[in-house]
Every structure is written in C-alpha cells, then in structure tokens.
C-alpha cells in the first residue's frame, strides 16, 4: 500500500516536472510543497507502525528511504523558493503574487516543522522498539497471509489481532531481557568465584612456601642434633678409656705397699734375734 502510494506519487511529480519548463517557479514551489506533504503523511503512517507486529527490518528500510526522499524534495523546493524570491526582488511584480509567494513560504515552513516532529517521533520509537524478526516463515507467504488476513477480517478484528501480536512480541522481548539479566547475574557470580579461587590459590602457594622454609629449619635442627649425638658418643668412649687407665694405676700402688710391709717385717725380726 505505502509502496504503491510512493509509486503513485512519483509519476505525478515527474509529470509536473515536465510541465515545469513552461510554468513559472511559483507553481513549481506549490507542486513541491504538495509532494512534501504527501511524503510526510506517508512517513507518519510508517512511523505509526513502529512498535507493532508489522515493525520489521523492511519497514525500517522503507522509513530510511522515505526520509531520504523527503530530504531531496525539501532541497529542490527550497531552491525553487529562492528562485521565486529572487524574481520577486528583481522584477516589479504585482502585490497579489508577492502575497501568494509569502503564503507558500509559510506553508513550506509548516511542512518542515511537521516533518521534523515526525522525524523526532521516529527516532524515539526506533530506539524504544526492536524490529520484529519473522521466525522461519518465508516473507512472501507471510505477506500473502497478511494480505489475506487484512482482506478477510473486519477492522476491529484486525486491530485485536495486531494488539495480540504486539503483546506477543513484547512478551518475547521481556523473556529475552529476563534471560539476559539472569545470564549477566550468573556471570558476575562466576567472576566473583573465579576471583576468590585465585585468592585461595595464592594462599595455598604462600603456605607451601612457608612450609618449605620451615622444612629447611627442621633440616638444620636435625643435622645439629645428629652432630651433638656423635660428639656425645665420642665423649663417652673417651671417658671409658680414662676410667680403665685410672683403675690400673691404683692396683700398682697397692702392690708396692705390700712389698714394703714385708721388708719392714724381716728387718724387725733380725734386730730382735
């Protein structure tokens, strides 16, 4: 429908373009303003479908093309308006024509304001809603079924169907947003777990280093005690030798004393006799 309207608009404009060579710029400006009006109304109708089940990537592309088309029309009409203004300024034309040109300028400004308003609304809705992606259905059959549904049902039923489809799309969007929120929360939790496990890893490594150092100290203690043990054993053997030596010396002294006693006894017996 909208595309047919655009196609219907173009040949009409081009026809006037052909006639434009013969006519004056005032009528050219009027024709341009009329085209802009038609294009802006088409643009507004496309903007109204944003956020509905009909909101697809194709619709977004149509919006973009229509916006570019309106921009081109605005440029052309602005140029023609300047030509008309120059002609009015240089040549002495009657007052009624000047008044008509001024009125056309006001109409042009009004159309531009409407276009800016529609453009702002389109930008808001484009950011608010995401385009509806048809799921596993061929677009030709989808469009055909859409046309059939449009032709069969009454406008009220059609509105209800559009509303239910819009609610379905909103439900899907909410579900996906909910899933993404869950996944984000899950990821944050797992990132925290990863960080804590890194900390535990560092703690265990530090503990291993400390245990290794203490192991070196215990090795030193063991070697020192081994040395003490060897020294004590050697001391014991030395003391044993000293004890044996002292015992032999004491026995020799007793023997000498006994011999001296016997000699003394013999001397006494000889003197008495």
């Amino acid at each position: 429908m909208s595309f047919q309207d655009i196609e219907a608009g173009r040949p009409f404009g081009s026809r006037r373009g052909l006639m434009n060579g013969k006519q004056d710029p005032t009528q050219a400006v009027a024709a341009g303003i009329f085209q802009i009006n038609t294009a802006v109304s088409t643009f507004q109708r496309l903007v109204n479908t944003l956020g509905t089940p009909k909101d697809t990537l194709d619709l977004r592309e149509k919006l973009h093309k229509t916006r570019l088309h309106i921009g081109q029309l605005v440029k052309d009409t602005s140029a023609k308006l300047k030509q008309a203004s120059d002609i009015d300024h240089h040549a002495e034309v009657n007052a009624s024509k000047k008044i008509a040109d001024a009125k056309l300028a006001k109409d042009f400004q009004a159309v531009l304001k409407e276009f800016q308003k529609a453009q702002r609304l389109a930008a808001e809705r484009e950011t608010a809603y995401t385009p509806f992606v048809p799921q596993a259905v061929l677009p030709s059959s989808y469009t055909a079924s859409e046309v059939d549904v449009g032709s069969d049902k009454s406008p009220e039923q059609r509105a209800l169907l559009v509303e239910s489809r819009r609610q379905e799309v909103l439900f899907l969007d909410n579900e996906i947003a909910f899933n993404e929120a869950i996944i984000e929360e899950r990821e944050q939790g797992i990132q925290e777990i990863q960080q804590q496990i890194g900390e535990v890893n560092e703690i265990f490594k530090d503990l291993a280093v400390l245990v290794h150092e203490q192991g070196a100290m215990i090795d030193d203690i063991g070697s020192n005690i081994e040395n003490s043990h060897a020294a004590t054993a050697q001391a014991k053997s030395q003391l044993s030798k000293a004890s044996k030596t002292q015992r032999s010396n004491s026995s020799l002294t007793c023997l000498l004393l006994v011999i001296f006693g016997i000699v003394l006894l013999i001397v006494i017996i000889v003197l008495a006799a």
Partner: protein
Amino acid sequence: MSGSKKSPLKVAKPSSAESWTNPFDSDDEGKDSKKYSSSRKTSSERALATLEVNTNPFDDDIDANKKSSSTSYAFQSANRNRYKNDFRDSGGLENQSVQELESYAVYKAEETTNSVNNCLKIAENIREDATKTLVTLEQQGEQITRSHHVAADIDHDLSRGEKLLGSLGGLFSKTWKPKKTRAITGPVIVGDDPVRRKDNHLEQRDKLGLTSAPKGQSKLRTPPPEPTNALEKVEVEKKKQDDALSDLSDLLGELKDMAVDMGSEIERHNKALNHLYDDVDELNFRVKGANQRGRRLLGK
C-alpha cells in the same frame, strides 16, 4: 507439496527482478511508456517487485546459514568478533535485534562456561599444591620425631659419661654428682599412631582424588550438545556450567578437608617442637656441667 509450491516461486522471482530492474536503466521513453500503461498487470508486477525487495535479506540469511553449516568454527569466531565489535560500535544492547540479542546471550553463556572451566583448572592446581604441602608436612613431622629420638640417645650417652666422670679422680678428691633439673623424656609415643593412621588416610584420599577428577571430565564430555535454538543453546551452556560448578564444589570440599588436616598437623608440630626444645635445653645444661668437671680433673 511445499517443495513443489516453493520451486515455481524461485523460478519466477529472477525473471520479474530482471523486468523490474530494466526500467530504471532505461531513459524517459521507458518512464513515459510506464506512465501511459496504467493497467493492473503493471500493479501486479510492482507487487512482485516489493516481494523481491522483501526476500533479498532473507536470501542473504539463507546463504549465511549455508556457510555456517560448511565452516562452523570460522562462523563462530566471526560471530564472536561481530558481537564484540557490533555492540561496541552500536553503543548499547537496546539498539540490537532480537536475533542478535539471542546470539549475544549464547555468546555470554559460553564465556561464562569458559570462566567456570578456568576456575576448575585453578582449583585442581590448588589441590595439587595442597597435596604436596601435606606430604611435606608429614615428612617434617617424621623428621621432628627422629630428631627427638636422637636427643634421647644423647641423654643416654650423657648419663653414662657423667657416671664415669664421677668415678674418676684420686683417693683424696671430692665426689662429684651431676645436677639434673628434669628428666628427659623422648617423643610422645601416643601421638605417633594417629599420625600413621592419618598418613594412610591421606594417601587413600589422594588416590580417590586422583580417580575422581577424570570421572568428572568424562561426565562432562559424554553428553553431546545439540545446537538447535538459541535458547536451547543457552540451556545447554547452563547445564555445562552447573556440572562444572558442582565439580568445583566437590574440589573445594576436598580443599577444606586438606586445609583442616594441615592445621591439625601444624598444631602437632608445634607441640613436638616445644617438647624437643625443652629436652635440648636440659641436655645443654648437663653438657656444660660435665665439661666443667672434665676441666677440673685435667687441671689437677
């Protein structure tokens, strides 16, 4: 039926596309002929043209799907790069389509799974380090016990030496007796048996730990993931995450047990070292006394 229906549509599309593109290339004469011929046939051709305009991106999607079936790995890597780049360039999640959001969700889920797997690897490394630390602690405990036994032997030799020093000396020398502050007791024998029992227990735990890890890995590998929908992919990733998290929980439980054992082992080491310190202090005192006695005997 559906195949037969689809094929004539595909055949009809390119011819109508050619007929549609030609008028754009032609000059004003073509446009004039278009304008004058305002019949229903031209309107039907325009409708077909609109259908073709609608079909073009979906054809691209179909081609993309075919490419993905041929080279899945390259497609996945390209997708990941697109997701990172697209979302940074676009500036937010709100500007994306539903399909891209679903793929982004799958990408995030896979990233989370990779994080969990990294946690598992780190936890396994921690367990290996903890096992080595426990073994080192056991060896140190045994060494402390052996050192204490050697100290007891030193006490035995020192006692005999002191007796010999007492018996030495001449007939007229003073008698000498060693001064003993406290009796030297060896290492506590009661503490050894639970240490040995726990050693066996720890060895069994290590064996069980070594055997349990490959079982977990095999469990993770056995269920093949079925890539059907984005949401089902996310569900599969969630199951992988849950399995990895449960394995991680088991590993952390083992680490807790190991840490508790380390604490008790170090506590026992502290007591044994204090006992060894007291004994060695006493031995030091007695050795000094014996040295003084020896010097006196040599001096006289």
